[in-house]
């Protein structure tokens, strides 16, 4: 099930010829810009790092979206809500006195089981009878249900979520970086790398890749494709849980039933920008979005916090218009 996006040609000059070097060149240029700017200005460096931290969160959630999309062509609208739920579960465990890191690990396990169960109970019955769009609608129903459940169980008051990282500032060359930001970048990158290694080097990961691209052929060699689908949702939920745990301590986000709504948009934008089939693309795009929005917020006065989300949205629209297959996607024209 490769990407099959038919590009409708606009009869105007909007079609730009993309050769292989343009995107990497832009990225390289961007990196150089960031490094130079960071050296020149402490504020720039700080904003870049905190932008990368936000970007790491968007990237984690984006990879979760790509995971499910690659296997089923379904855009899972409930990804953020599932993450919110697991983050509240973590909060509850902390309330009951469990120390932080055991809570973290336990939450990831719970998230995995939760994701796999959700796929089995809510998604598979729909998939059996319907098509991609009905599954998408079901995922929207799931979004409503899970966010509602969070509000029902825990009441919709905004809560404080402790951070895994001690409140500490690292001083590098006169610039102060919070351990929260550094830690977030570290954990998000690490989790994506672990996932990548899982897919690349393990038998199960190989089977999942095979099942995603050729489910029929995979069945013939004995791969239980439907189990792996549940597994995929479990993994996606785990990634989402990590994103949720990393973002909830952020004072501008905080723990509330709707906390992942905006982040889901950024994650969508990252996934789409990255080409929807490529995890690397999603990660790079996620980091880029985080940094760009952070810098825009500091340096462009009319980009207030409220306008960040619309800005990301406009960015997504523009990319869709100009390069519909995303920055890293392949433009596969479907044979009529």
């Amino acid at each position, binding site marked *: 099930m490769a990407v099959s996006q038919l590009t409708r040609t606009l009869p105007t000059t909007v079609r730009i010829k993309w050769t292989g070097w343009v995107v990497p060149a832009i990225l390289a240029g961007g990196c150089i810009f960031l490094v130079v700017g960071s050296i020149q200005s402490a504020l720039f460096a700080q904003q870049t790092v905190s932008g990368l931290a936000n970007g790491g969160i968007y990237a984690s959630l984006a990879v979760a979206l790509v995971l499910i999309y690659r296997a089923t062509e379904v855009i899972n609208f409930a990804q953020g809500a599932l993450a919110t739920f697991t983050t509240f579960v973590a909060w509850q465990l902390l309330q009951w006195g469990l120390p932080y890191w055991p809570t973290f690990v336990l939450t990831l396990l719970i998230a995995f089981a939760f994701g796999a169960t959700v796929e089995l109970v809510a998604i598979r019955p729909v998939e059996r009878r319907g098509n991609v769009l009905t599954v998408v609608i079901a995922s929207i129903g799931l979004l409503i249900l899970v966010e509602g459940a969070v509000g029902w169980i825990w009441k919709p008051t905004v809560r404080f979520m402790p951070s895994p990282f001690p409140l500490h500032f690292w001083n590098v060359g006169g610039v102060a970086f919070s351990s929260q930001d550094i830690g977030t970048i570290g954990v998000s990158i690490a989790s994506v790398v672990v996932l990548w290694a899982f897919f690349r080097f393990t038998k199960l990961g190989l089977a999942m890749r095979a099942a995603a691209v050729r489910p029929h052929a995979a069945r013939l060699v004995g791969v239980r494709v439907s189990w792996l689908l549940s597994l995929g949702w479990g993994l996606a939920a785990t990634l989402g849980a990590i994103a949720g745990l990393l973002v909830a301590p952020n004072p501008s986000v905080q723990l509330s039933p709707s906390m992942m709504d905006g982040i889901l948009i950024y994650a969508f934008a990252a996934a789409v920008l990255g080409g929807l089939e490529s995890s690397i693309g999603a990660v790079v795009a996620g980091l880029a979005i985080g940094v760009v929005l952070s810098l825009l917020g500091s340096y462009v006065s009319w980009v207030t916090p409220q306008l960040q989300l*619309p800005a990301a*949205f406009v960015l997504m629209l523009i990319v*869709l218009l100009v390069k519909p297959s995303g920055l890293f996607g392949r433009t596969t024209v479907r044979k009529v």
Partner: protein
Amino acid sequence: MRTSVAVRAGVIAVAAIVIAVLPFAMSDYNRTQGANVGVFFMAILGLNIVTGYTGQISIGHGAFMAIGGYTTAILTHGHGWNDVATLPISALVGFAAGVVVGVPALRFRGAYLALVTFAVALAVPQIAKNYSGFTGGTEGLQLPQHTGLWLYGTAWTCAAILFVLAWLLLRARTGRALRAVRDSEVAAASSGVSLAVYKTAAFGVSAAFAAVAGSIYVLVISFVNPDVFGLTLSLYILIGAVVGGLGSLWGVLVGAAFVQLLPIGLTSSHGLSSQSVPVIFGAIVIVVMALVPRGAADLLRIVAALSSRKSQDNPLGLEGR
């Protein structure tokens, strides 16, 4: 599954009479609720136009309602317009917004429109909060009050007009779309530009419907602020459409009534907390999708036709069941 014209006409006639007569038997509060049902009716109608034409769904109609609502609010509050006179303006503004969103999103199959409209649903309240000088920000804008009867009457008159409009639009299109399919796929594809144009225009129209709904909503609550049109509203419009039958005109009334009245019923008579409503709604959506009832069946027919690439914009399933 085509019910005869006579039966359909009969059903409409009965429904119309009931709707016309009902308010005289209701309290003022209930009339206001009835007006809200009318509001949802128009919004869901708009959503079904999108689904009928493009086979995609929108979860951003709340935002188009916001656009319409704010148009009416700003014109009435700040510029002293007569409220009913703002409705056509609101429709135009909604149409424009729909076109802007639709152009990039409708070029693709799949859930791209849902994705983009989801973002719109979240983005518009943020924009409204940001330009508070213009929109009154979180404090909002106050609007003149009206009686329940006036609201009910206005809402349902607009609803009736829009219903007829929707029906005409979809009928006219059916003929041409069918012809395009019948002639040849190459011909249909070579007129690819016009297909995209029709789809985008359809989305614009549907956004216009939602804008009018939003304007009336704002009049009903005589107030507007960004939180009025949150993501939840867009999701509830979708729920109403799903329950009533996606892509179908005839179930819209059922869907609208369901979405507006069920929460009230649940919380007041069954004593469930208001937090339980989304859980129940979400579960209903999933169950509906899993069991493939008439709503999903219509959608499937549309999408099956679309995915076989034989008819890109044949609004199947819109002629009733």
